[in-house]
């Protein structure tokens, strides 16, 4: 049992504060109408700037661009500070739930974020505002694959040996696909059957890529023929001229959800709520669908016309939202297992 004496609590606070010092941005207390948003860069940040920020009159948005992992690390480092350095942090649903379980997040107040009422029921959580979502699908190069795979086990066919690609950073979602195929439950990532399924694929020459974009490049160059990816990425790659097509897993497609959270120590919570509400506006959501192929998380954004046709999901597609309460606790053990087993040559 850990020692919880007041002395140690103070020391812990001091150590936490010392760790957070280099991460702090100088922030004057009068800057109430400033909202700091920690987000990914690239298209995502550009779309936020062009489509969400204009909806917020009288609020200055400061964008803190970086990867998700350091952003999450910052939130942990600043957890004991009365004023953190970000008001809104963009994270994936799995990380958002992890932060929520650790008690770092402000519960979302539907009265201050009216657009939360429009969220699809299968995406709702207490502390995480889903912004965009997509489905994990099987991908293939139509020039080299005449009969596309329909289930995960189809990839075990020896004809795909050394021709299957997945992103190492997406390991948890790949494990959820393995769990779904092996046990029927995507949350059982630690089940021996799920792990056996993953190692079978590894034995079939699974190629692990350091970045998501490298998978698209692998398809284009002919290095791989099939793989596992988000449907949104397939739309983006098709737009970029990469010969790739998607097929839905017959056993079900795990949802990838990215969204935003408000830390408990956010200096401008009112501004953060206003930002969340703006990002859920249908007009802003449509732009993310147009540019990045992600689906809107709100039910009042009905995509119409060619975009609606392009992103429409088949009626029989099975969407599998993870149980974040369960999978959040399995991150660490799954990561270690993956690193020690799957990444070994």
């Amino acid at each position, binding site marked *: 049992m*850990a*020692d919880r004496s007041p002395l140690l609590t103070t*020391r812990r606070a001091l150590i936490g504060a010392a760790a957070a010092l280099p991460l702090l941005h100088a922030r004057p207390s009068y800057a109430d109408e400033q909202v700091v948003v920690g987000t990914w860069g690239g298209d995502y940040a550009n779309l936020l700037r062009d489509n969400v920020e204009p909806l917020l009159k009288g609020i200055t948005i400061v964008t803190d661009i970086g*990867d998700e992992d350091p952003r999450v*690390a910052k939130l*942990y480092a600043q957890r004991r500070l009365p004023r953190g350095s970000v008001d809104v942090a963009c994270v994936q649903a799995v990380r958002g739930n992890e932060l929520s379980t650790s*008690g770092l997040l402000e519960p979302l107040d539907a009265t201050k974020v009216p657009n939360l009422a429009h969220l699809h029921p299968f995406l709702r959580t207490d502390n995480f505002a889903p912004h965009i979502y997509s489905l994990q699908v099987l991908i293939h190069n139509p020039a080299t694959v005449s009969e596309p795979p329909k289930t995960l086990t189809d990839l075990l066919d020896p004809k795909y040996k050394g021709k299957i690609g997945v992103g190492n950073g997406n390991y948890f979602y790949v494990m959820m696909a393995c769990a779904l195929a092996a046990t029927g439950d995507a949350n059982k990532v630690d089940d021996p059957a799920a792990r056996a399924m993953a190692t079978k694929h590894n034995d079939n020459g699974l190629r692990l890529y*350091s970045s998501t974009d490298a998978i698209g490049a692998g398809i284009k160059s002919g290095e791989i023929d099939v793989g596992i990816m988000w449907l949104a990425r397939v739309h983006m790659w098709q737009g970029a001229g990469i010969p790739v097509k998607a097929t839905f897993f017959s056993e079900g497609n795990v949802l990838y959800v990215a969204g935003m959270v408000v830390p408990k120590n956010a200096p401008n919570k009112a501004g953060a709520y206003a930002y969340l509400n703006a990002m859920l506006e249908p007009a802003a959501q449509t732009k993310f669908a147009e540019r990045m192929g992600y689906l809107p998380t709100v039910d009042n954004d009905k995509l119409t016309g060619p975009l609606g046709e392009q992103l429409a999901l088949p009626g029989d597609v099975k969407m599998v939202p993870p149980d974040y309460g369960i999978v959040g606790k399995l991150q*660490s053990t799954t*990561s270690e297992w993956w690193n020690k087993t799957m990444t070994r040559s």
Partner: protein
Amino acid sequence: MVEQDHDSLLMPDSAALAVPRARPRQRGQGGAASAMLGPASLFVALALVAPLLLLLRYSLNRYDAVELMIETVTGANYARFVSDPFYLGVLRTTLGVAVATTALCLLLGVPLAYRLARMTSRWKGALMLALILPLFIGNTVRMVGWMILFAHGGLVDGLVTKLTGHGFELMYTATAVICGIVSVNLPFVVLTIQSTMETIDPRIEEAAESLGATPVRRFRRVVWPLALPGVATAGILCFILAMNAYATPFLLGGPRFQMMAPLLYWEFSTNNNWPFASAIALILMATTLVLTATSGVLLARR
């Protein structure tokens, strides 16, 4: 004296020519120097030692998925590293890559540095610029260039396929990582050795030549002993940089090629296991320090 061979005759004189005799220190100089060094030393102590102590403290804590860190004093993180063959394997890979990279950099760097140091051509400035030009481009961007070169269907693969009919994939191999790190470290190695060789008076070599020494013998018995401190510094610099390489093994080695720095980052950021990541950082630092200190001692004895 008469019984001594040419080599031993040359050494004292060459050393005397190459190293200027130190002037006796004047009174008051020491105090002034200390006063000037004080602020910098204090800054280093605060900016380097204090975070290291914090890192040490973290490494003795226990990881908790919800609390992040539970304050305690335990050696469990260190025990986990040294008792697990996986982590020891990663350390071995890192050491192997660092040693191979250092050897290659010295092998390529010493002749290059010697040629540059002895060059009197007006192109010397341009060549020096060409040497440091890669440093103007970010490390990650340079690695992306290597990725394009090594990729499936890339320049190397395409050329080999054309010549042999078989593909040649270099991406995600130890060779790719070593090539990448050598390209990053080589300018540092050459510049360090070249600056030392510039201080060696060419007249010493001329003296050796006049005494009948062949070019190889001249280099081995005159230039090499005098350049050794610079070569050792370059080797140590290269070794330290290679031990801590992150972008190169991550991008060129891929997820299956594990080195210490990417492993450390994975533990810190993906797993949020700060105590274990701190222990890995200190183990990496300690290994590098011990090995560089040992090589320093061995060289000093020599």
